[in-house]
């Protein structure tokens, strides 16, 4: 319970209109997009200036109040689920694009800027911000950086981490800390930017973020290749890479997902196909056209049943509409959808898909798998109904097994969704007891009272 006098202090800092303590409002900040239990905070505030943000962080620390920062609440690992009675700071009152510098190709933004809005603003100037997480229409840059969000373009362009040139953030006492620079090169001080990316709100609170921009590719070409086995699709992926072609996106869908998409959108997909690859090349027109011919030939030589190259923008849109529909199509089948993101080295994709199919059989569950074939980031999607407790127990076992398999293959628990609450207890399996200890020490040094999003990444002690 947060005392009236502290509530009053928050109101003084962020204004009466940006402070909510009503039980009903609090309930709407008790969840994010992850399938974890909701937890109601004690107060929600929405600062609209960076000064107010710093003061609010300090007030939390002085009073030992656990603090969770929230952008659009689209987190898939429970990272924005608050602590009971804690403080939620909503960043959507800090949504200015402070600068887009065309000459030096960078942007400076506040944490609450929506990813897609930034992408559109830089595109209007002929520049490109490549990270495109699935939630980009609503997700915020602050959240993307805090989670090191990925997207479809990881293979060629990397992930959010690769575009963060610098950050300024408030430490737990509300001091403004600066790291990185507007320059391409910067060799001063500790690489605090590197530490902050993916820190999930456990080490500090972002004030502004400097992002690298690149020229917008002049030309794009998409195609769709159908295979009668996952192995052949995977061999085609390997062949494309081996031939030193790096597509902007290289996505796949398994048979279950293909059928779901076809039922959902009647796009004319081959429902008997074991796997489909969706490829997009971008760059200089001549090279894109040349590579497109080579990719088409490679897919065919690897046994593709058919390859369809999009001839115009409308056809290209249809290719990507099919991919975008994947999650929706699966979501419509059952009430609860658990979207995992276990990631393996790309050459192990056929093994991982087979392992997931075996796990689905073992626990008698429905799992559709699609994802980023180019970077090994799979999305095994478990369809269930959380109200069915018996089935839910099997789901939890299946998740454990999926993680085990991914780690056995030299992969990771999470390619792009973050550790959060959902994966913190598995983290030691991927790393080591020493790694957890080292991380806890960093956390303790930066946040002695353990108020910054406690329990995320490093599991709360039982």
């Amino acid at each position, binding site marked *: 319970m947060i005392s009236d006098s502290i509530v009053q202090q928050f109101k003084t800092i962020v204004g009466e209109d940006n402070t909510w303590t009503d*039980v*009903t409002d609090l309930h*709407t*900040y008790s969840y994010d997009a992850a399938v974890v239990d*909701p937890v109601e905070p004690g107060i929600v505030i929405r600062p609209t200036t960076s000064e107010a943000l710093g003061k609010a962080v300090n007030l939390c620390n002085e009073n030992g109040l656990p603090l969770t920062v929230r952008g659009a*609440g689209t987190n898939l690992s429970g990272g924005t689920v608050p602590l009971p009675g804690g403080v939620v700071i*909503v960043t*959507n009152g800090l949504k200015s694009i402070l600068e887009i510098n065309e000459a030096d190709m960078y942007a400076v933004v506040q944490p609450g800027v929506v990813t897609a809005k930034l992408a559109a603003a830089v595109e209007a100037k002929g520049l490109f911000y490549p990270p495109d997480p699935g939630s980009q229409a609503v997700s915020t840059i602050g959240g993307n950086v805090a989670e090191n969000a990925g997207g479809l373009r990881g293979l060629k362009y990397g992930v959010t981490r690769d575009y963060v040139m610098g950050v300024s953030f408030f430490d737990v006492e509300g001091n403004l800390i600066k790291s990185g620079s507007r320059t391409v090169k910067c060799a001063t001080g500790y690489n605090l930017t590197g530490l902050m990316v993916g820190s999930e709100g456990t080490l500090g609170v972002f004030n502004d973020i400097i992002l690298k921009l690149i020229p917008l590719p002049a030309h794009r070409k998409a195609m769709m290749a159908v295979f009668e086995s996952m192995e052949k699709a995977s061999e085609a992926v390997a062949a494309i890479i081996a031939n030193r072609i790096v597509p902007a996106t290289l996505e796949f869908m398994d048979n279950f997902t293909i059928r779901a998409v076809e039922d959902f959108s009647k796009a004319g997909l081959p429902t008997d196909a074991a796997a489909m690859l969706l490829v997009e090349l971008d760059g200089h027109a001549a090279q894109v056209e040349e590579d497109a011919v080579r990719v088409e030939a490679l897919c065919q030589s690897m046994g593709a049943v058919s390859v369809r190259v999009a001839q115009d923008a409308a056809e290209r849109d249809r290719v990507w509409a099919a991919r975008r529909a994947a*999650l929706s199509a699966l*979501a419509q089948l059952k009430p609860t959808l658990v979207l995992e993101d276990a990631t393996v080295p790309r050459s192990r994709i056929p093994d991982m898909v087979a392992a997931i199919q075996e796990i689905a059989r073992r626990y008698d569950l429905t799992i559709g798998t699609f994802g980023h074939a180019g970077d090994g980031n799979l999305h095994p999607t478990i369809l269930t109904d959380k109200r069915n407790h018996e089935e839910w127990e099997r789901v939890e076992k299946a998740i454990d097994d999926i993680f085990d398999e991914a780690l056995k293959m030299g992969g990771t628990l999470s390619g792009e969704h973050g550790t959060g609450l959902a994966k913190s207890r598995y983290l030691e399996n991927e790393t080591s007891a020493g790694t957890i200890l080292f991380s806890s020490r960093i956390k303790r040094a930066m946040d002695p009272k353990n108020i910054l999003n406690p329990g995320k990444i490093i599991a709360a002690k039982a």
Partner: protein
Amino acid sequence: MASMEELTRLMRELEDQLIVCMKCGMCQSVCPVFDQTGREADVTRGKLALLSGLMESMFDDPEGVYERLNKCLLCGSCAANCPSGVSVQEIFLKARAILTGYMGLPPAKRLILKGMLANPKFFDRLTEWGARFQKLFTKPVNEIVGTSCARVMSPLIQDRHFRTLASVPFHKKVPYLNRPAGTSGLKVGLFTGCIIDKMFPQIAYSTIKVLEHCGVGLFLPENQGCCGIPALASGDLPTFHKLLAHNLERFAEGEFDYLLTSCATCTATLHEIWPKMTDEKNREAAIRLAEKTMDINQFLIRKANLQALPGPATKKRSVTYHDPCHLKKSLNVFSEPRAIIEANPAYKLKEMAEPDWCCGMGGSFNLQYYDISRNIGQKKAEQITDTGAEILATGCPACMIQISDMLSRSGAKVAVRHPVELFAEALAE
């Protein structure tokens, strides 16, 4: 208010519909209200979480949920963009009925319903019990047919920039029509709609003129009622059922191939909402009529084969078109109204930015949250004036009210018209 039996049934249906939301939050990108306020309780994901929370007894504030639930335009942008296909409007209309029922009860009865809110299944047995005491929970409803829209209309006119009510409503001049099919071989029923009847009768005259031009027969029954959406939006299920029964009866007297309206909201209500919110005794008739219901623009292009009129290619005045949410998002009608506008050689279409962003009207939302409604509407007005078009056309008279208000406030010299009016201009008297 609705009976206990009905409320229990609605709650049981809600449980299954609420679970479909996977809390992905994509609704944040399209909600006009959230765009203004940034508050989770204002966006659909938040409202659905509140309803679930209330029903699972996670907290106890039906009044608070009721208030937040009503802060919604019912524009359907979220539903059209929802990856999981949540039946948002249906959920909200049912929830409004349930909570209105609850709010309207005296304290002792509230306790009972509150128990039901928390656990609809447990209270199945109460249904029988409730039926026996139904008289305690229901109050007599006034005869609302024909007057039910007054509560929408009269407060609107007060301090808003607005054209006055028509001196003579459409139904006074044209109370009844029954003409056989012409050259098209088609005959339609015409559902006038309150706002067209009382505020924009010229849309109805234009509609008749264009149907004649296309050789379409017409059945216009006397004494039509409101489509019922204002009653549903305020949670008044019995009034809605009464209006539904009345309208079904009116149209049962004629024979026609399609039922047309020139109001996007009426069309969406008849086509989408009637079958979902009807009572049992009218279900079959409501579904039958709903299946025949079609927007005027869609009918003219898809069924009546309306052709562009010949004329000089020069001196075209520019028209920009606003997509009413209830046409584009509810019924996927957006190319047809544009085709109607371009079918008159005097006009050319000039698109505005985000033509399908809501105008912020939302019926009673405009009354309750005028500040938010106005901020949403002003954005629309700017996008309209940015095109430099002389005329704003849209397929919904409710949008016309809002956009007229907003354009007038900004001092813009832009006429607000219905596509059918623009086409009718080109037809000889």
